[in-house]
C-alpha cells in the first residue's frame, strides 16, 4: 500500500489520539512529511506479515522534550540522513524502517526517512501509543538489543551508542538529547524481519489513519464521536474507548526537567463543582485520578480531546481554560503481560499504585451526559 501526502493529515490526527499527549508536536512534522512525500511520490507501507524474515530493519524517531519542538524546528532531510549514518555505522543497508511509537510527530518521522531513502515503512510500531523511555518499547521487552544505535542533532553532530542494556541506553540518549538542543533523531533497535514480527504492535499506522478519518468525518463532540470510534476500536488490538470525564482545564503547569516535559493538569466540570480530574504528565498523560481515585493509568491510553471537535490535544498544547473530553482506552494485550508491566506499570513512573485494567475502574468514571 502506498501512503501519499494526502493520507498524512488523517494519520497525524489519529496518531495524536493514540499518543496520549506525547510524541511531539505533529504540526511541524506534518508540514515536513507532506513536502517529502510529495517530492518522492509517497512511501510504501508494508504489512508486518509481508516482511521477509531475513530483512534488516531498524526503528527511528525523535527523542527529547516535546516543548522543544515548538521552537527548534526539525529539518526535512534529517531523518534520511540519520538512516544513512546508521547504515554506514552498521556496514549494511536497511530494507525497511519502523516507528518507535505511533504518537504525534514520531509517527511521521519514519515516513519522512523511508521516503527519502526509497525503502518501505512497516505498518506497526514499538508502543501502540507513545511512552517516554526506550526500555518501555515492545522491542527491548521482547529481548531485542537497543544498540548499536546512532543519534543525529540539528547541526549534523552525531553520536553512536553501544550499551549493555536498554536502561543504560536510555540514560545515554537522554543525556545526549539534553546536550544536543533538547531534541534528537535516533536510529536504534536493529533487528531482523523475524525479530520484528515477534515484537511489533502490528497495523498501527493504518489503524491511526482510520481513527483520523473518523475524527475528520464525524467531527463533533464526544456524544457524536464515541459510537463510531468504538466501532473502529472493536476491530483492533485495543480495548473500547471509555468516557472518563468532560470539563475545563482549571490548571496546567509543566516544565522541561531532565530532558522531559513534566507536568500536572487539573480538569473541573463545566459547573466548577463536583469531582475533579487530575492528570500526571511525563511527556505523556500517564495517570488520571478523579477525586483521588485512579480512573486510568499507563499502559492504558488516556486521550484528551477538544470538547467541541474531539481533536486530540498534545500535552505541549494543553492550556488553561480549554474545554475537553478525556477518554481512556485499554492498551494492546502485549502491555498487560507481566514482563511488559515490569517496564510500564505506574510504579515504573514513581506512582505508588499497581496497575488496574481500565475496564475494572469504571465505577470511578464520569458518565457522558446526554443533551
Amino acid at each position, binding site marked *: 500500500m502506498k501512503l501519499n501526502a494526502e493520507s498524512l493529515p488523517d494519520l497525524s490526527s489519529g496518531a495524536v489520539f493514540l499518543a496520549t499527549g506525547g510524541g511531539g508536536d505533529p*504540526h*511541524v512534522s506534518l*508540514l*515536513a512529511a*507532506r*513536502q*517529502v512525500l510529495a517530492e518522492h511520490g509517497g512511501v510504501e507501507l508494508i504489512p508486518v506479515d509481508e516482511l521477509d524474515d531475513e530483512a534488516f530493519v531498524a526503528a527511528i524517531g525523535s527523542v527529547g*522534550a516535546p*516543548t*522543544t519542538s*515548538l*521552537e*527548534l*524546528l*526539525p*529539518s*526535512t*532531510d*534529517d531523518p534520511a540522513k540519520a538512516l544513512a549514518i546508521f547504515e554506514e555505522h552498521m556496514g549494511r543497508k536497511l530494507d525497511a524502517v519502523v516507528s518507535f511509537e505511533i504518537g504525534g510527530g514520531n509517527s511521521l518521522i519514519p515516513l519522512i526517512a523511508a521516503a527519502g531513502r526509497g525503502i518501505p515503512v512497516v505498518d506497526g510500531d514499538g508502543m501502540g501509543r507513545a511512552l517516554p523511555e526506550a526500555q518501555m518499547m515492545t522491542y527491548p521487552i521482547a529481548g531485542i538489543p537497543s544498540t548499536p544505535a546512532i543519534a543525529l542533532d*540539528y*547541526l*549534523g553532530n552525531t553520536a553512536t551508542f553501544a550499551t549493555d542494556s536498554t536502561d543504560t541506553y536510555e540514560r545515554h540518549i537522554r543525556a545526549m538529547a*539534553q546536550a544536543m*538542543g*533538547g531534541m534528537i533523531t535516533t536510529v536504534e533497535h536493529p533487528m531482523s524481519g523475524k525479530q520484528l514480527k515477534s515484537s511489533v504492535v502490528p497495523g498501527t499506522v493504518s489503524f491511526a489513519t482510520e481513527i483520523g478519518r473518523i475524527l475528520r468525518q464525524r467531527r463533533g463532540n464526544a456524544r457524536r464521536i464515541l459510537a463510531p470510534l468504538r466501532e473502529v476500536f472493536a476491530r483492533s488490538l485495543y480495548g473500547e474507548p471509555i468516557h472518563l470525564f468532560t470539563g475545563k482545564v482549571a490548571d496546567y*503547569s509543566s*516544565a*522541561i*526537567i531532565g530532558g522531559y516535559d513534566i507536568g500536572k493538569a487539573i480538569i473541573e*466540570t*463545566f*459547573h*466548577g*463543582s*463536583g469531582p475533579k480530574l487530575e492528570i500526571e504528565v511525563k511527556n505523556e498523560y500517564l495517570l488520571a485520578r478523579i477525586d483521588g481515585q485512579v480512573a486510568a493509568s499507563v499502559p492504558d491510553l488516556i486521550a484528551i480531546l*477538544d*470538547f*467541541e471537535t474531539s481533536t486530540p490535544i498534545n500535552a505541549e*498544547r494543553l*492550556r*488553561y*481554560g*480549554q*474545554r475537553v473530553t478525556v477518554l481512556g482506552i485499554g492498551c494492546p494485550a502485549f502491555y498487560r503481560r507481566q514482563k511488559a508491566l515490569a517496564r510500564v506499570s505506574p510504579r515504573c513512573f514513581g506512582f505508588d499504585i499497581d496497575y488496574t485494567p481500565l475496564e475494572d475502574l469504571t465505577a470511578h468514571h464520569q458518565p457522558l451526559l446526554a*443533551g
Partner: protein
Amino acid sequence: MLRIGIDVGGTHTDAILLQGGSVLAAAKALTSRDVSSGILDALEEILRHEAGIEQRIEAVMLGTTQFTNAVVERRELAEVAAVRIGLPSGRGIPPKTGWPEDISRSLGDHVYQLHGGYLYDGWPLAALDEREIESLIGDLKARKLTAVAIASAFSPMNPEPEKQVARRIREALPHVRITESHRIGQLGILERENAALLNAGLLEFAARVVDSFESAIRARGLGCRFFISQNDGCLMDADFARRFPALTFASGPTNSLRGACKLSGLSEAIVVDIGGTTSDIGVLRDGFPRESNIVIDVGGVRTNFRMPDILSIGLGGGSLVSEGGRTVGPLSVGCELVTRGRVFGGDELTATDIAVAAGHAEIGDPERLGGLDADTVAAAGAEIHRMLNAGIEQMKPGSAPLPVVLVGGGAILVREPLAVASTMLTPEYSGVANAIGAAIARIGGEAERMISYERIPRQDAIRELTLAAKRNAESAGADPASLLVADIEETAISYMPGNVVRLRVKVTGDIARRKEGEGGQYQPRAASSSRAAQTGGEAEL
C-alpha cells in the same frame, strides 16, 4: 469625562457619545470605502447632540475589524520578506509552509532562512552569519521590499538575534518597516512568525487607515487624544497601532463583551451576541473577557494571539428552521434575511420568522406566516433555547447560574428566561455595544523580567514588577488611581539554576482626565508599547 467610541465594522460604522456612565447619543452609518467619510457621517450625527461639544471631548476610542477583514479577504496586504533566524534547524520548512496558497501569494515569494537563534537551555543554536545578513539586505534592496518580518528560535527567551538583524536592516534601509516576532507572540516559532508576517503585511495599510481615522476625527474638530482598541481590551495610541495592526485581530468580540459589561453594569456575566448566522458566547470575568489559549487561525493562518474565549454556535436571526421546527441552523440566509425570510416576503423559514410568529418580535409582515402551525413554532422556539442553554452551560465558569446579557440584533430570538441564567437582560443601546466597548477600553502597562526566586522572594518580585507596570501604564496615559493588576504570569525556566521564572505583570486602568492647561493635541507616546519596551531578555532583578 466626555468621550466618543467608534466601531468601524465591515458594513456599519457606529459612534456613541459617552459621558461618565451614560450614553448621550448613538449613530449608525454605512462604512465607506475610504473609511473616513463613514466615520464623519456617524460623528456628525452624535455631535449634533450639543453645539460646540467638540471642545469638551477628552478622548476618541476606535475599534475596527478593518485589519482582520484585510487578512480574511486577502486584500491590502503588502509583500513581505519573511526572515527566519534558526538555521541549521528547520531546513526544508521555510516560513509560510502550510499557508493557504492565496494569502501566501499576497505576501510574495520572499523567504529567507539565516543562521542564528538560541536553544531551550540558552546555548546559541548558531552564530549570526555576517554574509547572510549582507546578502539579505542586498536582496531587500534589489526587490524593493518595504516590509520585513523577523523570527528567531526561542526569541521569547532571548530576542537578541531578532534585534540585531532588525538593527542592521534599519541602518542600511531606514524606510523599511520591520516586525520582530518577540514583540507580538509567545513560544511556538511558527505561530509567532505567522503573526509577525501578517502584521508586517498590514503595516502599509495600517499607516493609511490609521491616518484616515485620524484625519476624519481631526477634520471634525476633535483635537483630543485618539486611541485604537486591541484584542485584550486595552487601548493603543495611533502610533502603536501603525506598528502593530495585527493586535486589533478579535478586538470586535472583545469590545462587544466590554460594551455589554458597561451597558449592564455587570462584571461577572455571560454575554451572548446574536447576529444573523451565529451566536457568539463569551464570559465576562472581573469585567473583562475570559481569554482563550488555543491556536487560532486568522484567515487560515495559524497564530497564537491572545483572544477572548468565544464559543460560536450556528444560531442567528437568519438560521434556517427545518420541517416541524426540530432543527434550527447552522445553515443561515445571513445578510439576505431581509429578502429571503418569510416575514420579508421570501420562501425560507428562519429563526426570525419563528420569533415573529410567537409574537415576540414585530418585524416585517406577520401576515406572510399564514399556515405556519403552532407546533412548529413551539418546537423551534424550544430548540433555540436548548441550543443557547447548552452553549452557555459549556462556557459558564461555575455551577451557580449567572446573569446573561443579550446584545446584537438577534436578541429577539430569546423570548423566555434561559434556564442557565440567573437573570437575563437586553440593555438599551445593545446594538452599538462594540462602540461602547471601544469607548471604555482601558490603558494597559506591562513589565516582564527573568527573576530568580532564590535571590528575590516571590512577593517582593511581584510587587516590584507591579510598580514598573504601573509606571508604564501611567506614562501611556492611564489614571494612576484606577490601576489594577490584570494578570500575573509565571513561566518556569527549568534549565536555569536558582528557581528562575519569567514573570510578567500586567496592569490596566482608566484613561486619565486631561490636565488643566494641557493642549488639545496631547498624544501619549505609546499606550501599550511598554509591552515591547519591557520584554527584555536576560535582565534580572
